[in-house]
């Protein structure tokens, strides 16, 4: 567990400042900044190509950022902090494709020191029981996504970054996953989810970071974002989709 120390209680768990990432001169992220508060479910919302995955990969240390910094409780974030504080669940991966799902989940728990006692419950809640003996590489997109989420939920890092957790899931599965994620948050885990379907985000997130074209267009609760949109001329207390469209 990360050392909390005697930090300012009002200080967010993670503060991201000025993250910039360019690919061959083209800015994928341009001075991105926002905060992650302890125990919240924060949604990173943006259309395809807005830089969500790039931002997650910069935060998780998968990609080197060109500029900017990440603070953990006010202190600069080290590589050691990253491995004890964050667990990043990338999108569109099929880890250990030849291995059975049960083995892969248990491996993540054993390797990262996760919770064996919660294994059966998480597997059951995500509806993975029928697929436990199927190799990961033979699972459908949605099944694989659920297997990956099971791995993420069974790790013990205080912050879980999940890239597109609802991608590939049907409505029922999305709702069940939302409940499972809310339960994890209720047990004190901080969740930072990248979501391009705004309806999914509205179902599960406490606060939102709106990302468009590599820039943060807004940050806050639904109410705060509505006010921001109203200030920009949105006439009615519209739903999140309209707020997003107004702010981006």
């Amino acid at each position, binding site marked *: 567990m990360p050392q909390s120390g005697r930090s300012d209680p009002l200080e967010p768990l993670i503060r991201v400042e000025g993250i910039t990432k360019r690919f061959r001169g083209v800015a994928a992220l341009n001075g991105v900044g926002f905060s992650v508060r302890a125990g919240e479910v924060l949604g990173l919302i943006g259309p395809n190509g807005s830089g969500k995955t790039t931002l997650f*990969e*910069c935060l*998780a*240390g*998968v*990609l*080197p950022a060109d500029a900017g910094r990440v603070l953990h409780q006010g202190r600069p974030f080290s*590589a*050691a902090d*990253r*491995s*004890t504080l*964050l*667990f*990043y*669940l*990338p999108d*569109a*991966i*099929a*880890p*250990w*494709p*030849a*291995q*059975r799902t049960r*083995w892969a989940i248990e*491996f*993540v728990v*054993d*390797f*990262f*020191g996760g919770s064996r006692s919660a294994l059966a419950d998480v597997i059951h809640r995500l509806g993975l029981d029928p697929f436990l003996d199927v190799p990961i*590489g033979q699972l459908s997109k949605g099944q694989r996504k659920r297997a990956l989420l099971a*791995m993420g939920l069974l790790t013990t890092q205080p912050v879980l970054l999940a890239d597109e957790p609802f991608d590939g899931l049907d409505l029922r599965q999305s709702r069940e996953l939302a409940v499972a994620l809310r339960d994890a948050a209720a047990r004190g885990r901080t969740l930072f989810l990248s979501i391009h379907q705004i309806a999914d985000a509205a179902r599960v997130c406490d606060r939102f970071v709106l990302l468009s074209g590599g820039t943060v267009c807004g940050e806050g609760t639904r109410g705060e974002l509505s006010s921001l949109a109203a200030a920009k001329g949105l006439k009615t207390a519209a739903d999140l989709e309209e707020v997003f469209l107004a702010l981006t």
Partner: protein
Amino acid sequence: MRSRSAWLLPLAGKEWRELLASRAWWIFLIAIGPLVGFAFISAVRTYGEASGLHGTSPGVGEAFSPLIGIWAPTFSACELAAAFLWPFVVIRLVGGDRQSGSLKLELQHPVSTVARLWVKVFVLIAGWVIASAAPVAAVLLWKSYGGPIYLPELATVSFGHLLNAGLTIAVATLAACVTEHPSTAAIVTLGVTVGTWILNFVAAVHGGFWERVAGFTPTAMVAELQHGLVRLDVVLVAAVLIAALVWAAGIWIRLGVPVRHRVRESAVVGVAAAAVVWACSMTAVSRDFSENRANSFSKPDEEALRRIATPLRMVVHLAPEDPRRSDLDRRVIGKLRRVLPALDVRYESSTTIGLFEQTDPHYGEIWYELGGRTITSRSATPEGVLERIYELAAVTPEAELEEDIFRGHPLAVEPRGAAAVFYGIWPAAVAGTALIWRRKS
């Protein structure tokens, strides 16, 4: 509290399962049987014929050493497998993590990337040891024919191929970590292998510095160990190269580190490795484990040579590609270096093949200088060279004892049952094991 090494067992178990799940590994295992079998069957047949099988005239001397007649050719199949098949197994195990995306999960663990790669290296070495069951089957067959086995030389040959496999693992691991795609990694690895062959060719043509460097290529290393010679400098250099390549691979497999940082760190590793390699190459300790003393003069000759304290200088007027020179190197100079550390050998020639130097009155001469005395000779045989050295140093070796003379182990047998073992039983057993494992796991 979770132990600091709690990651090791799950990771080693995962790497082992990944190796067994790889088709490349099972195909490699199936292929090595017939490869070794073909080499073994040919070697036993030739050995048998040289020993008088089918009414042929029995030969004499070194031809009857199982090391030269059986084990060197049989195990050379392992060299072929290490060069052309083994890299694909390594790249599958190392590069597969990147392809599947599991690297992004695994690298979130705080354990260093170099430690992670060493786990892979040890699992791959275990895989190579399992594949060595094919040459072990050859050894058992040879024993069943009544063939003699001299364990020190057999162990030396096996060690040489293990070291060669280790070098292949290290090169392929680095290639898989530096490149984005397994096919690129395979091309790079095979390119390195071909590069070492070119280096050997350049060394044969130009000699000097190139010859010294080429002495540390996997081909040269395996050739020496296949003849039962263990040189400490070669073993140390191979170990340092393996460690440095895995270290560099650990630098390149990391995620989230700018390329310029990796290049800088790799350069530091390269410079450090070059310095250690240079220091290791100064070591002159060696041991001949062959039963027939293939890399040594007779005991009385060695004792006589050790009595020569004055530095000996030889100037050899033979071109690099002249067969007399390679004979001289292999049968005389290599053995002399092991007993005369102060030996200084220089080669003089103005062409690479020597064919057009025959008119030079000095071509073919060997000049000796010891303690201010000089002598010239044209003999390049071990007896001729030793005679000149003894003459200069005024020493006389004692006669070789009858029991010390290696008389060989003729064995006139056919390779009975070997074809069935290597072409039938081996592939079937490996394929059956693969199927059982796939169903069980």
